């Protein structure tokens, strides 16, 4: 290359005028010489490909970090020599591609982690900080959708009997949460009595009349009550509120705001009130401990579950070797309380009889009969 031959075209980034220049590689620099102007030096390691570099194409180059200057080498010996000396010029765009893929993949992982934290960890932690107004507003809406226009069952003798059970259950709890308990004659669409119990936010417990009707003893009612008290004590309903919030915020962020106008809290909350397996296990453990302390036979809870299973599957208790999820599937249409208890058969078998022997009965026969007639 002689100094007088122009072998490249240069745009200086200041004007759109094309300048004919001579380029040379001197040590680690690309030197751009212009007529009557000082040389420009581009360190080779900062030279990037704009386009070209394939046979039949001109080589277009820029300096990293420089928004304007461009150098164009026609296909030919000068371009070939430059590529031979600094092959890294051709690989810059590959680096750019992989950094893009890397950031995108990392973001997906970050979103997944944020989603997990939103759904699994944060709700339980934040549950205690929800203002009472919010808890009550949710509880009102939920209560309405659970009870609908059902009749309240509140005969004074029945209520007294229920309170007696409640006192006995609470006596077994170390630090019992405040809760209210009401019975409603809730019916399914086909007018059949629903067998269910709900722990709503704010410690509002609702039993269906069908549950009391189907219970064989006060121990069974106490068992269900202790289980629901477990949900209340662990703030599972409040955690569900946070989860609904988290889900909606998450959705609206992920869909860039398009989920923001579809706020349907009650429907969402009903969906997540189906507690997780972990929550059910927690409530069960709480129930067994409380019942044990209160000298109530924990077998009552077991008997109730077993009775429900029998009623719904016609098979009696869990058959050994039968997959518990298949079992669950069969009771699923029945109630949400029990169908959301995953692995019902596992749980039944995990409840051990009380070691202390016979317990004092919770209710007299008379009181038990009054409870049975709470709806009349």
């Amino acid at each position: 290359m002689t100094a007088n031959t122009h072998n490249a075209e240069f745009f200086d980034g200041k004007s759109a005028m094309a300048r004919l220049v001579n380029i040379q590689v001197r040590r680690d620099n690309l030197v751009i010489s212009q007529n009557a102007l000082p040389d420009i030096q581009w360190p080779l390691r900062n030279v990037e490909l704009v386009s070209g570099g394939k046979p039949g194409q001109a080589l277009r180059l820029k300096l990293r970090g420089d928004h304007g200057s461009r150098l164009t080498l026609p296909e030919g010996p000068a371009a070939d020599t430059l590529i031979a000396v600094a092959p890294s010029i051709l690989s810059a765009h590959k680096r750019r591609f992989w950094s893009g893929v890397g950031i995108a993949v990392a973001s997906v992982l970050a979103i997944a982690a944020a989603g997990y934290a939103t759904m699994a960890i944060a709700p339980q932690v934040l549950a205690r900080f929800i203002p009472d107004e919010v808890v009550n507003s949710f509880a009102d809406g939920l209560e309405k959708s659970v009870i609908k226009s059902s009749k309240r069952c509140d005969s004074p003798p029945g209520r007294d009997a229920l309170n007696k059970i409640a006192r006995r259950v609470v006596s077994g709890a170390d630090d019992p949460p405040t809760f209210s308990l009401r019975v409603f004659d809730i019916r399914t669409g086909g007018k059949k009595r629903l067998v269910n119990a709900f722990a709503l936010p704010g410690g509002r417990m609702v039993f269906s009349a069908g549950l009391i009707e189907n219970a064989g003893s006060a121990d069974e009612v106490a068992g269900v009550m202790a289980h629901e008290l477990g949900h209340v004590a662990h703030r599972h309903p409040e955690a569900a509120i946070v989860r609904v919030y988290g889900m909606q915020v998450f959705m609206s962020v992920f869909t860039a705001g398009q989920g923001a106008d579809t706020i349907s809290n009650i429907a969402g909350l009903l969906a997540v009130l189906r507690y997780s397996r972990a929550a059910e296990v927690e409530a069960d453990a709480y129930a067994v401990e409380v019942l044990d302390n209160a000298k109530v036979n924990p077998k009552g809870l077991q008997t109730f579950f077993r009775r429900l299973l029998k009623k719904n599957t016609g098979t009696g208790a869990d058959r050994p070797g039968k997959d518990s999820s298949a079992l669950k599937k069969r009771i699923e249409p029945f109630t949400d309380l029990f169908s959301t208890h995953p692995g019902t058969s596992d749980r039944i078998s995990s409840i051990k009889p009380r070691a202390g022997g016979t317990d004092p009965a919770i209710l007299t026969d008379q009181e038990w009969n009054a409870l049975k007639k709470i709806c009349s």
Partner: protein
Amino acid sequence: MTSSLFGNPSPEKSPVGAEAVKFEYISQSGLGAIAVSNFFLNLITLWIYRFWAKTRVRRHIWSGVHVNGEPVEYTGTGKELFIGFIVIVATVFLPLALIGLGLAAYYGSESPVLIAFQLAITFLLLTLYGFAIYRARRYRLSRTVWRGIRGALPGSALSYSGKYFGSMLLGPITAGWSTPAMNLILAEHITNDMRFGNTPFSFSGRSGPLYARYAFCWFGTVLAYLLVGGFAIALFNSGAFTELQAVLDKLGDNTAASDSRTAAYVVGIVAAVIAIYLLYVAIHSIVWSFYTARELNLFAQYTRFSGAGFEFHATAWSLVTLWLGNMALIIFTLGIAQPFVEQRVMRYFIERLQVVGVVDFASIQQSQAQLDKRGEGLIDALDLDAF
């Protein structure tokens, strides 16, 4: 040695470096690989890769545009678009979502307070449309480089957004008749703000010449609807529907269940709805392409840059075939060929654009407009992205 090195001599070179300007689109290989890899990377990243995907496509398509033999370069990055998106979500959509959820929790999801809030959000988002369009145009211009000089749009996005919102309000009020006038106002505003380097584009003209064509298309649409409606009524009266019903009944009888008969009805109704929608889209696209062609050509005539004028040669038929080809590409590849659609549009515009007169490129200096560090968050979030 004064002639260009690269086989793009400028025959009308005037003494002081003024050149004629020639646009060309030269396809580069590799778009197929970009389309396919973008599609899969989008899938596995739940569409978060879209910012980088878009960037790769633009980089490729821009590089096919040649002005006087020198390719145009896209210098934007996926990271800038990604950050733009994150910033908009964090500053606009996340707070709005949180406020909405808070109001819903305190007042209940059917309270008037919440409804008022949602109306306010809708209104706010509508006013942001023009803003988003303007900012996106600014980002793209500032990332478009030719001969080392970049474009710019240094005006106020807010005042454009006001006009845009006005045009959205006037459209339905005037049954569409404000469209030519408002389109002209919007084009005038944004074109007058546009720069290549430090040199402005200018736009001046009246919307009057558009109205004959607009009236033709407006009444054409009404006529098309009347014809389709009349045809449907005639079809209904002729008993074709009873026949269809009989056919559907038969379909149902084959499986001997009233459920499947209902299913057949549902399928029939869904098919009819899809057919009506396609008909609607087809009528609009075909009839209104006459107007669009006129508007494109006229607005090009109204535009000037550094002493040169523009001509655009759109025709209704070419727009219809462009649109049909694009639809086919999208439908038959399930969207994977989207980059080719964008390339077809770019090629259409470049190949039909002519510059009349000469431009003294040596006198064009680099843009002094500040380079934004991020871009297009709003237009992506509002899902307005056309390109």
